[in-house]
C-alpha cells in the first residue's frame, strides 16, 4: 500500500516536470560521440563561451542546454580528444550531435582542449575520479594484464587490502562496502585467480568512474564507494577487432555496425592459458590440473529513432581450478537491458532491467566415490528508472527509483558414500527486497558557486521463507522463528541526504565541501584481507541493523600550466555505525548460526589525500598520497579497546608516470610505497598436547614492514603505413622491478626435531615478474 502511494507520487512528479518546461527558451541538445567509433563520450564538456556556462554529457553521452535565443559558440571537449567549436544561431530548438576525434597530441590541439580543461575545478562533487581507459592501459601491470581495479588502487583514498588482491578499501571502508557496477549490474566478486586479476577485460571497457563516499543519490546500498564501469557500445562506423596475446592470457574483441550505423555490437573474450603448460610439468600432481579463467562480454545497442535507444549487455566469467578428484568453480554473470527515452529534449530518461549472479561450486566430480559437492550463489533481479531534467544551464535535476530482489543461497552441501547413501544439508536462503527513490539537483548560483543536493530514501524488506534465530547475550541460539514463503517479516528504511558545494575562487582554483549519508543492507561474511571466492553475502535482518556512514569531506582544487597540472588536497572524516566485524576465530562458512559470529560496533576513519595529475604531450601520470587512520570500536572485540582496521596504511604513496620517448616508444613506471598493514603477533606461548599455541595481548598491535614496489614497462608501437588498418604494439613489463620481498604474512613454525623450538617465517608472493604482451587492432 505504502509502495503504491510512493510510485503514484513519483510519476506525478515526472509528469509535472514535463508540464512546467519553461517558455521562451530554445534548446540545443544531442549526443557527443567518438568520431572513429561512434562511442558516446561520458562526461564530455559542453561550454557556451559567451556566457561561460555549460554542462557535461551524461552516462549515455547526452546533453541538453536551454538558452535564450541568440548566437552562441559551443565548445565540446573531452580528455584526449580534439575540442570542437560550433557556432550556432539559436532561434529554435536544434539537435547537435557532435563527433570528437582523438588528439594526436600536437600542440595546437592541446591548447584547444585546454579551453575547457578545468572540469575538476568546476565539478561540484568531491572525491570522484574518472579514469579514461586509455590512461589505465599505460600503467604497467602484473603479468602485463591491464587491470581497471589495479589502476583504481593507485588513486588517493583507495588502498589495496592485500598484495595482489582485487579488493580495495576506500576511505576506510571494507572491501564489501564498494558498489561495483558493470553497465549498472552489480559485480559481487570482481576477482579472478584469487584476486590477482579483476573480472574487467580492458578491451571491453569504455569508462571508469570512482565516487569515494559522495555517491550520487541515484545509487545506494554501499557505504564507501561507487565504482561505475561502462562497457563500450561497439563501433558503429566500421567493423574492427582488438586483441592481445599476453604472458598469461589472450584477448579478442570484435565490434561493428549491425546493418546500419543505428545499431552496433561488441563481443569480447579473454582466457588465461596457464593450464596449457601444466602438462609439461614434471610433477604429475601439477600436470593433471585445470587452472584458468575466462571472460565474455557482449553488447548490442540500437538507436530506434531520435528519442529511443536500447542497449543489451552482458558478462559471463568463470574461474576453474580442477583435476580428476576435486574442483572449484566460481564466477559472475550479469545481464542488463536499458531503454533510453527522451520525453522531451529537456527530459532524458533511462529504464533498466538488470540481473546479477555470483556463484561458487566445489567438490568432487559427479560419480566420484565418495561424492561431495558444495554450492552457493547470490542473485539480483532489479529494475531502475532514472530521469534527468535540464531546465536551464544553471540547473539539472535527477530523480528516479529502483527495486532489487536479492536471492542469497549461502550454502548447500551434498555428500554420498559408496553405497549411494546421502547426507544432505542446506542453509536457509536469504531473500530480500531493496527499494530506493531519490531526487537530486545540481545548481549553479552566480559565477562562483555551485551545489549538488540529493535525498535518497531506501527501504529494505526481508522476505520469507526463512528461519530466523534469536540469540542471547553470549550469542547462543535461544529460539527460532519460521516465516512463510513470500512473507515480508522485517523492514528497515531511512533517508540518505547528500550535499556538495563548490566555491570557484577563479577558473584555476576552487574549494569544495560535501556531506553524505549512506546506508548498507547487504554485507559480506569475510574476515580475510585478500579476496576469496568463498563469499557469503548476508542481509540486514531482525538481528542485524543496517550499516550507516556519515562522511564529511572538503578539498582545495587547483590547476596550473593551462590545466596540464591538476592538483587537489582533500580532507575527510567518516563515522560508521552498526559496523560489522567478526568474533575471534569466527566460523563463517557453512554456518547456520552465522549471525552469532558477528560483533557490532562503530568505526571511524579520517585522512588527507593529495593528488597531482599531469598531462603533457610527452609526459603524463599522477602522484597520489594518502594519510589515513581507520579505527574500529567494537565492545566485544579486543577487550573493548579500539583497534586499527586490518587494511589501515597511514601513509600510502603512488607515483605513476608515462613518457613518450618517441612517436613509437613509450615508457611507463609506477612506484608504490605504503606503511605496512596492522598484524597480530604473539607476546607469549604455551604448550598443550605437544603443540605450541600463541598467546596474544591485542588485535593488530604490530605492523608488517613497509611495502614498496617498482613496476616498469616499455611499449613499442609498430610503424603505421598509409592505407593499412593493422596496428600493433609490443609491451614489455616488469612487475616488482627491484625484487622487493614484501611480506604477505608471517607464520610460526614448530621445529620437527625439537618441538620446543619455534621460528618466524615470512611469506612473500612475488619476486621480479617480467611479461610480454602483443596487442593489435584493425
Amino acid at each position, binding site marked *: 500500500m505504502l509502495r503504491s502511494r510512493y510510485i503514484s507520487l513519483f510519476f506525478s512528479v515526472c509528469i509535472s516536470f514535463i508540464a512546467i518546461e519553461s517558455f521562451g527558451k530554445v534548446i540545443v541538445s544531442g549526443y557527443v560521440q567518438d568520431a572513429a567509433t561512434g562511442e558516446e563520450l561520458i562526461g564530455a564538456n559542453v561550454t557556451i563561451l559567451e556566457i561561460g556556462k555549460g554542462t557535461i554529457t551524461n552516462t549515455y553521452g547526452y546533453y541538453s542546454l536551454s538558452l535564450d535565443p541568440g548566437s552562441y559558440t559551443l565548445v565540446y571537449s573531452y580528455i584526449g580528444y580534439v575540442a570542437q567549436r560550433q557556432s550556432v544561431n539559436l532561434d529554435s530548438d536544434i539537435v547537435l550531435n557532435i563527433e570528437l576525434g582523438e588528439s594526436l597530441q600536437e600542440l595546437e590541439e592541446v591548447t584547444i582542449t585546454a579551453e575547457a580543461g578545468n572540469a575538476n575545478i568546476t565539478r561540484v562533487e568531491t572525491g570522484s575520479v574518472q579514469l579514461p581507459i586509455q590512461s589505465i592501459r599505460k600503467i604497467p601491470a602484473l603479468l602485463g594484464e591491464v587491470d581497471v581495479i589495479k589502476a583504481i588502487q593507485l588513486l588517493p583514498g583507495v588502498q589495496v587490502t592485500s598484495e595482489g588482491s582485487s579488493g580495495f578499501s576506500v576511505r576506510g571502508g571494507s572491501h564489501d562496502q564498494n558498489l561495483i557496477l558493470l553497465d549498472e549490474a552489480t559485480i559481487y566478486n570482481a576477482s579472478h585467480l584469487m584476486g590477482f586479476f579483476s573480472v574487467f577485460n580492458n578491451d571491453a571497457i569504455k569508462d571508469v568512474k570512482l565516487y569515494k563516499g559522495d555517491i550520487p543519490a541515484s545509487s545506494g546500498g554501499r557505504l564507501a564507494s561507487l565504482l561505475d564501469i561502462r562497457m563500450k557500445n561497439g563501433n558503429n562506423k566500421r567493423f574492427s577487432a582488438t586483441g592481445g596475446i599476453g604472458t598469461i592470457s589472450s584477448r579478442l574483441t570484435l565490434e561493428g555496425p549491425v546493418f546500419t550505423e543505428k545499431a552496433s555490437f561488441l563481443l569480447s573474450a579473454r582466457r588465461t592459458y596457464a593450464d596449457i603448460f601444466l602438462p609439461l610439468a614434471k610433477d604429475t600432481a601439477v600436470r593433471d590440473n585445470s587452472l584458468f579463467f575466462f571472460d565474455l562480454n557482449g553488447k548490442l545497442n540500437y538507436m530506434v529513432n531520435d528519442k529511443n535507444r536500447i542497449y543489451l549487455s552482458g558478462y559471463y566469467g568463470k574461474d576453474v581450478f580442477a583435476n580428476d578428484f576435486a574442483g572449484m568453480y566460481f564466477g559472475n554473470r550479469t545481464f542488463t537491458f536499458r531503454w533510453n527515452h527522451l520525453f522531451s529534449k529537456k527530459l532524458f530518461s533511462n529504464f533498466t532491467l538488470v540481473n546479477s549472479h555470483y556463484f561458487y561450486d566445489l567438490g568432487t566430480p559427479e560419480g566420484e566415490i565418495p561424492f561431495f559437492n558444495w554450492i552457493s550463489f547470490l542473485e539480483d533481479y532489479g529494475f531502475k528508472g532514472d530521469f534527468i531534467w535540464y531546465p536551464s544551464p544553471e540547473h539539472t535535476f535527477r530523480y528516479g527509483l529502483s527495486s532489487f530482489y536479492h536471492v542469497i543461497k549461502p550454502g548447500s552441501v551434498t555428500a554420498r558414500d559408496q553405497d549411494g547413501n546421502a547426507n544432505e544439508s542446506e542453509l536457509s536462503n536469504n531473500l530480500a527486497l531493496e527499494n530506493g527513490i531519490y531526487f537530486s539537483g545540481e545548481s549553479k548560483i552566480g559565477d562562483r558557486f555551485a551545489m549538488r543536493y540529493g535525498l535518497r530514501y531506501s527501504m529494505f524488506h526481508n522476505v520469507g521463507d526463512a528461519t530466523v534465530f534469536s540469540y542471547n547475550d553470549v550469542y547462543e541460539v535461544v529460539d527460532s522463528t519460521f516465516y512463510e514463503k513470500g512473507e515480508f517479516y522485517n523492514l528497515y528504511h531511512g533517508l540518505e541526504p547528500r550535499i556538495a558545494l563548490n566555491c570557484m575562487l577563479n577558473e584555476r582554483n576552487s574549494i569544495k565541501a560535501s556531506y553524505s549519508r549512506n546506508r548498507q543492507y547487504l554485507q559480506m561474511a569475510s574476515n580475510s584481507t585478500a579476496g576469496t571466492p568463498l563469499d557469503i553475502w548476508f542481509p540486514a535482518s531482525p538481528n542485524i541493523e543496517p550499516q550507516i556512514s556519515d562522511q564529511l569531506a572538503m578539498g582545495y582544487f587547483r590547476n596550473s600550466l593551462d590545466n596540464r597540472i591538476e592538483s587537489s588536497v582533500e580532507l575527510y572524516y567518516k563515522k560508521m555505525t552498526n559496523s560489522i566485524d567478526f568474533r575471534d576465530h569466527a566460523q563463517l562458512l557453512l554456518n547456520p548460526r552465522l549471525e552469532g559470529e558477528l560483533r557490532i560496533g562503530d568505526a571511524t576513519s579520517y585522512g588527507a589525500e593529495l593528488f597531482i595529475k599531469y598531462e603533457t604531450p610527452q609526459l603524463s601520470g599522477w602522484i597520489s598520497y594518502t594519510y589515513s587512520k581507520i579505527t574500529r570500536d567494537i565492545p566485544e572485540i579486543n577487550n573493548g579497546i579500539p583497534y586499527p582496521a*586490518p587494511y589501515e596504511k597511514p601513509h600510502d604513496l603512488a607515483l605513476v608516470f608515462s613518457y613518450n620517448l618517441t612517436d613509437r616508444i613509450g615508457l611507463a613506471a609506477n612506484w608504490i610505497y605504503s606503511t605496512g598493514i596492522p598484524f597480530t603477533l604473539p607476546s*607469549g*606461548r604455551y604448550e*598443550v598436547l605437544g603443540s605450541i599455541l600463541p598467546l596474544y595481548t591485542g588485535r593488530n598491535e604490530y605492523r608488517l614492514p613497509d611495502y614498496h614496489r617498482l613496476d616498469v614497462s616499455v611499449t613499442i608501437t609498430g610503424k603505421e603505413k598509409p592505407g593499412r588498418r593493422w596496428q600493433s604494439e609490443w609491451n614489455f613489463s616488469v612487475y616488482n622491478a627491484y625484487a622487493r620481498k614484501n611480506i604477505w*604474512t608471517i607464520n610460526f613454525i614448530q621445529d620437527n626435531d625439537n618441538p620446543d623450538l619455534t621460528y618466524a617465517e615470512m611469506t612473500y608472493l612475488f619476486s621480479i615478474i617480467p611479461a610480454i604482451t602483443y596487442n593489435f587492432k584493425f
Partner: protein
Amino acid sequence: MARNNKYPKGVLLVLALMGFAACTELIDIELDSTFQRLVVFGTVTSDSVRHQVQLTTSSDYFSNRPSPKVSGALVELEYGNNLVILEEHDTIPGLYRTPAAFRGEPQTTYHLHISQVDADGDGADESYYAESTMPSGLKLDSIRLTYFKSPFFSGYQVFMYALDPPTREWYSFKIWKNSDLLTDTLSKYSIQSDDFYNGSYIYGLPVGFLMDEDPREALMPGDTVTLELNSIDLDYYNFIVDAQLEIMGNNPLFSGPAANVRSNIDNQGKGIFTAYPVQRVSAILSE
C-alpha cells in the same frame, strides 16, 4: 565433513596452486613479553583410569625451552557429593592424577579447583576454576575403510556410521593403527559438530585419512584400524577449533586475524578442562 582439515578439497587445491607463486623465508622479529599464565590440560573420561590434570605456565614466545611445570599446587576434582584431591606424579612435575581409577559418568558435571599457585610470579597465590559436563553423545555404529587416490596423495579414508541424537552435539575422533595412536597431537585431532546431521543417521562421515606416503600411517592387509569417538562439550570443541586454526597459521586468503585460543579456565588461565565419554570401534583391512 570433519574438521581434520580446515578446508574442503577444492580449497586445498587452490592453496596448493597458490604455493607455486608464494615463497617463504625465515626471519628475525622482536616480540613483546607478557605476564605468565597458568596453563591447564585436564580430562575426565568414561574409561576406568586415573584421570590427569597437567599444569604448566606460559612463557616468552621465543623462549625455546620446555614449558615451565607447576608443582605444589592443590588440585581438587568435585562431582556430585564427591571431592577428590589429585596427587602430583612422583617423577613428572606438574602432572596431577586422581588417587584411584574410576569411570566418569555422562551427564555428570565435574568441577576443577586449582589453588596454591603463583603462576604470574607476583608473590601472591591465585585460584583457578573450570567445569565440564560429560555429554551422552551418540551410539557409534561402525567404520569403513575406503581407498582413495588423488594426484597429490593416496591412502585409506576412514568413514564413520552412526545415528546422531536430536540434541546439538560435538565430536572428536582419534585413530589407532593397531596399538599406535596416530592422532597424538592437537593438530591431528579430527572434530565435528552435528550442525549438518542433527538427529539424522550419518552415512559415512570422513573422520580420518591414513596416507600411503607416511610409513606410520600406511595400511597393510591385516592391520587393525580403531576409531575412538569422544562426545565432547562445546568448550572443548571450541578449544580444538581455535588451536588448530592457530597451528595452521595465517593465510590472508582465508584466515581472519590471529586470536587467543578460547579456554574454560577462569582468572585468565589458558588450556582446557573437559569430560567426555569414549567409544571405540575397529575394522581390519582385508586382503
